[in-house]
């Protein structure tokens, strides 16, 4: 890959919360890097810790009950140990974030223009007029029609897709080097989803911003990601480029994810394939590999936590956390003609 220094370097990130019922290990030793202009996708189901991971980068998970470990180095600052003042300077300015539900992410009592202006003026010493002009340009760039009038609208006067665009405009208003998008399209229509993703890609192309996109939707991932991190129960189980993950997945959980996508170009399966079982409790995770209880391929070695390592010589950036040998993986993941999935070899649909 590139030899430039990574924009963001996360090492062994661990986040836990003390709750009424015990300690929740939401993130358990996550490491990845982010290069400029790169779109990194963090994939997983709810409870995998994917949201906590990125929110921690912004310091939004700090609280009396939270404990952190590891490091997340951005430039010369470790985001985990930075002071609140330092974080305030970084947030919205160097690292910006958009959230899942655009319907509730904007303050209902202020006009959208004013909310963007607020952000600009919080980080840059410009006049209201200049900020307003910039805001109108931004709204235009994200595809909001009649931006000059819309800038004085209230959030409730806009549709979900529009509001998400406003969020993107707001996030990009101070030209951050990293944009984090936490499930940006989950609450939106499929058609709008495509538009938003397209917008994000375009913006990356024109502004060099790196993007971390958190999602559970592999369709979204296939669309725009360069690299993928697959998370399960607080840990990274597989990591690699989009091609590596889609065409040579190494971890059974990834097979399960890929296998549960229904495809138009194949025969309709009798049953929707899915990963049996439920994600483990974060309070009391299984010993060893967290996926063990749901994995049809588990064997006695799995009682020991598999390290996240590269097993394929030609792909040093493709890491996975599974004890199976590479040949076994490539065999077992074939559950049908060219079909990747998690079903037991004996349960291949006839």
């Amino acid at each position, binding site marked *: 890959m590139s030899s430039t220094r990574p924009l963001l370097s996360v090492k062994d990130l661990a986040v836990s919360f003390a709750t009424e*019922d015990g300690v929740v290990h939401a993130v358990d030793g996550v490491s990845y890097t982010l290069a400029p202009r790169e779109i990194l996708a963090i994939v997983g189901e709810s409870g995998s810790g994917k949201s906590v991971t990125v929110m921690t980068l912004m310091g939004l998970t700090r609280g*009396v009950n939270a404990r952190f470990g590891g490091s997340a180095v951005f430039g010369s600052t470790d985001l985990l140990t930075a002071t609140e003042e330092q974080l305030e300077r970084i947030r919205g300015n160097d690292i910006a974030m958009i959230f899942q539900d655009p319907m509730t992410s904007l303050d209902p009592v202020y006009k959208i223009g004013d909310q963007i202006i607020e952000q600009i003026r919080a980080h840059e010493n410009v006049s209201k007029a200049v900020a307003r002009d910039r805001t109108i340009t931004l709204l235009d760039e994200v595809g909001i029609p009649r931006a000059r009038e819309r800038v004085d609208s209230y959030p409730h006067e806009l549709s979900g897709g529009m509001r998400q665009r406003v969020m993107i405009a707001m996030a990009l208003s101070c030209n951050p080097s990293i944009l984090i998008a936490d499930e940006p399209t989950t609450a939106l229509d499929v058609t709008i989803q495509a538009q938003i993703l397209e917008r994000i890609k375009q913006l990356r192309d024109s502004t060099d911003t790196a993007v971390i996109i958190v999602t559970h939707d592999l369709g979204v991932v296939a669309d725009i990601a360069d690299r993928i991190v697959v998370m399960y129960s607080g840990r990274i189980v597989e990591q690699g480029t989009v091609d590596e993950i889609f065409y040579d997945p190494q971890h059974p959980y990834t097979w399960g994810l890929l296998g549960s996508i229904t495809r138009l170009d194949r025969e309709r399966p009798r049953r929707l394939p899915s*990963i049996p079982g439920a994600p483990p409790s974060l309070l009391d995770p299984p010993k060893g590999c967290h996926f063990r209880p749901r994995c049809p391929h588990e064997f006695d070695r799995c009682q020991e936590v598999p390290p996240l390592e590269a097993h394929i010589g030609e792909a040093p950036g493709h890491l996975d956390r599974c004890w199976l040998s590479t040949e076994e993986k490539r065999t077992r993941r074939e559950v049908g003609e060219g079909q990747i999935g998690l079903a037991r070899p004996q349960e291949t649909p006839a």
Partner: protein
Amino acid sequence: MAIEPASELSSVEGGTGFEAVAEREHAVGVGPWRLAGRRLRRNKVALAFGVLFLLLVALAVAAPIWANDVAHTTTSANHLTEILHEGNKQVYVVSLSGVPVGPQWFAAGGKFFLGADDNGRDVMVRLLYGARTSLEIGIAAAIITTVLAVVVALFAGYMRGITDTILSRIMDIMWAFPVVILGVALGTALSIGGLKIGPVTLQSGSIAIPILIIGFVYVVYMARPLRGQVLSMREKEFIEAARAQGMGSIRIMFTEILPNLASTIVVFFPLAIANAILLEAYLSFLGAGVQPPTPSWGEMISEGIDRITTAPHLTIVPGLMLVLTVLALNIFGEGVRDALDPRAKVRISDN
């Protein structure tokens, strides 16, 4: 076991309430009541005040014991001319200038423990019997309010149509009447004339009158929120299912909807008692509640205020008892509410 295609799982992680998410995940398998009980038990302060309330009730129940065996008097017996022996001094229960004696504690063997009022009556005895009256009124009125509110809410919320329109209009009217004014109006009118409903006659001095008035006046405040809940419950599937099974309306209301109102009712009830006790005090102060010589906290405070310049303890003592009781109920009620419906414990980050 839940089998869900990975691509259809909705993301639950929103907001900063991660602890709540985890908590929810772990709470599977424990019913909401037991969970609430657990939480309540952890709330030491609320429990302490709940126990305090029970102690006060116990004191009230023990009133006759104190009256007969310790103070050897009744609530109305006046000892105007009696003389107490304080050490080797001799003090009149009520001095010649009309000033009653202050708290004796155990100096006179328990008599006039908290002093006397200017009629020569034993304050402690009156206080305990007053507790009885106030608590009786409070609890009975709260029960009336709850029962009526539930019935009104069920009928208005479930039946809708004309029933709802009429009941809601009535509730709107009552809502516009400030509680105290309505209570005072009814209280004054009824305490003078008594009440005659069909074959039942209530004398003007009967405490059933304040009970009914207070119970009635607060119905609206409980019925409205409950009605809202009934309205939303009405649209849920389990009601549709019940109707499909052929259950009649009345049965649905009382066997399906009512149990779901239980947690709201449980939260409201201690607060209803507290409010009833307070309203009784307000009414008695204005002469529209408990009539003298029957003691109640409100009545005693009312009499005390008239004589506050000469004998402040007559105002302070019953007031403190009342405040303590109402406070205990309020704190316990808060604890119950927290136990049944905890907010995700979010902190603003410390800096």
